[in-house]
């Protein structure tokens, strides 16, 4: 399990940014492009730092798996540092990942993993983005923070979803990024006021629906609109994963030391 996780973690807390926040107001009169909508989603998180606990319940037929993570992040301009500590299941308990992610496309992210049984901090590299995140319906790329220009975004329509005004956009990976993705395109229903994606559908290269994500439990926490529940379904496999965030807090003034390698301890 540990090794698998090490392959798959350029991401996770990016969910904080990609899936959760959104304070800006939509301008009804404004006609936005697909890219501008994607940029507004990307810019929605105004927090300087934050922390949360994520619990995943994975349902596969009669089997249910539980995952629990504690996550922290802090922004450094356009760059970001994240720390993830695994709480459940027991075989990866206290395993931690520290990642320093950079906005610059040509700068590889830095990642370190902490193995509690050896009390060892070890540098690792990204990889396995197509793989499953902790055996859930989420792939690593699903929760990875994608740069806006990693995809080409097209506005399909404006609509409503569950009573909310939404933009429906389609995002296709640029050729340089397509090889690292399971998906030929994603279709997003983006809340036109809070700039949160309320639903995402993932399609393969034959235009078949692979997965569907819905998120809700949206509340304003410390002034930032935050989704606290996400369901990812894989219809073909008949499996689904619920991810729920609790203890969400922003702008805590977390010290830099919380994102240094010496913070990686049991």
């Amino acid at each position, binding site marked *: *399990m540990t*090794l*698998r996780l090490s*392959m*798959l973690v350029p991401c996770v807390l990016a969910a904080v940014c990609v899936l959760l926040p959104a304070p800006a107001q939509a301008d009804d009169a404004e006609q936005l492009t697909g890219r501008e909508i994607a940029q507004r989603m990307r810019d929605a998180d105004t927090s300087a730092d934050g922390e949360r606990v994520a*619990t995943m*319940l994975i*349902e*596969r037929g009669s089997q*249910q*798996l*539980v995952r*629990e993570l504690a996550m922290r992040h802090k922004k450094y301009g356009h760059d970001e540092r994240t720390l993830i500590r695994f709480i459940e*299941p*027991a*075989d990866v*308990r206290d395993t931690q990942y520290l990642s*320093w992610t*950079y906005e610059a496309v040509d700068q*590889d992210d*830095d*990642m*370190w993993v902490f*193995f509690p*049984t*050896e*009390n*060892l*901090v*070890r*540098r*690792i*590299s*990204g*990889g*396995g983005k*197509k*793989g*499953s995140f902790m*055996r859930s319906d989420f792939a690593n790329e699903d929760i990875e923070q994608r740069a806006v220009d990693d995809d080409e975004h097209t506005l399909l329509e404006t609509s409503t979803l*569950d009573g909310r005004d939404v933009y429906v956009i389609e995002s296709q990976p640029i050729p340089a990024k397509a090889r690292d993705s399971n998906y030929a395109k994603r279709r997003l229903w983006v809340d036109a006021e809070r700039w949160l994606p309320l639903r995402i559908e993932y399609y393969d290269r034959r235009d078949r629906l692979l997965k569907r994500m*819905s998120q*809700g*439990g*949206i*509340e304003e926490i410390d002034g930032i609109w935050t989704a*606290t*529940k996400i*369901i990812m379904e894989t219809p073909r496999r008949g499996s689904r994963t*619920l991810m*729920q965030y*609790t*203890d*969400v807090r922003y702008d805590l003034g977390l*010290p830099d*030391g919380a994102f*240094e*390698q*010496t913070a990686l301890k*049991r």
Partner: protein
Amino acid sequence: MIVRRRLARLLPTLLCCAPAAFGADDPFDFDLSAAAERAQAKWRLSGFLETRSRLLLTEGDWLSNRAFGQAELMHTRGPWRLFLMGSAEQDGAKRHYRDATRIELREAYLHYDGAAVDVTVGKQRVGWGTADGLSTIDRVNAIDYREPIGNARTAARRPSSLVRVEATTDVGVFDLVWLPRGRDRKLPGFGSPWEPADLHALRRDARERGATLRTDDTETHEGGVRYVRYGRGLDWGVAYFDGYTDGPTTHRVEGPRERLLPERIRTWNVNAAMGFGQSTVRGELAWTPDYPGAAGYGERWQYVVGWDRVFLTNLYVNLQLFREWMSDGDAVDGGTFAITNPFFDDALTAGLRGQWANGEQLAFEAFLELQWTDAVQLAMRAMFFDGDTGTPLGDYLDNDFAEIAVRWSL
């Protein structure tokens, strides 16, 4: 049942935020528009039970039939953290070289997490170095020679009683470790399949002469310091450790008393790890000026270079090469490797790993690990050894074994 208990503990957190879901069997049947509830902090008690059977492939005899339990208790209050880990085992394979029952306090320490300085006092495992499998500076903990194989490319090590101070500065991390009574060395019993041939010969000779050969430790302080600079794309560091060899190297006869003792050595090390794309490259260089080699004392040099990368979706490959040579020309060349890949929705991991060195030395392991549920893991592996007589791996030539283990996490 364990899974149900865990679900019972966690599901209220998942569900209580959704009034519509109370009483429902389907944990996904809740109000997606409702907010989530805050979690609670508490003491943490955890552990596992494990049964493990090892069958010697050469003799068809049981090498081990072990029932093992481990418990961990952790409590955090402000910057202070207390951690205790203990284990108990009962080995049903009757062996003359070891007690059937072992109860050990494996780790016990108090940690202070300061803003710039962290302090740890107690018994703890500490891993140093950037290389995988074989590191030249991972010397804070002694190899457990009673059962020295962690896996086919890594030694099993014992936690040490220590005082550790880590200081984080703008220019890097300084890590000081002091072991007032040295490392906690354990040697295999007389006649153990893990007993090196030369140690066995000395013991047998002493027995035949009616002499007493003591192998008790020096219990003299050891310690080291390292500096690590973590940065964009590159970590590098230097380290120094002043301590004793892992195994005994001196046979001292003092009248009727005979002792086998490790010898004090000092090791200087530089190390680095660099990430690019999906690969990581690691390297270490170490110099020990006063190493007791076969032809006398001399300088020992060691280097390790390694590379690891993920291919396809989850195929992980790790390869390391090492060389160790004395100033008089004696050299050992070898390497370590690991290849793993998950299958069946990542429930099953299959892998190969091992190490080789000159003298026809080889340790090779094939393994399967099945995550049956969150709490239950099944593991099977077969391990094979080869090598010339008198070489470290050649001493385990007759120890090829197959293993099956079941672990219940609590």
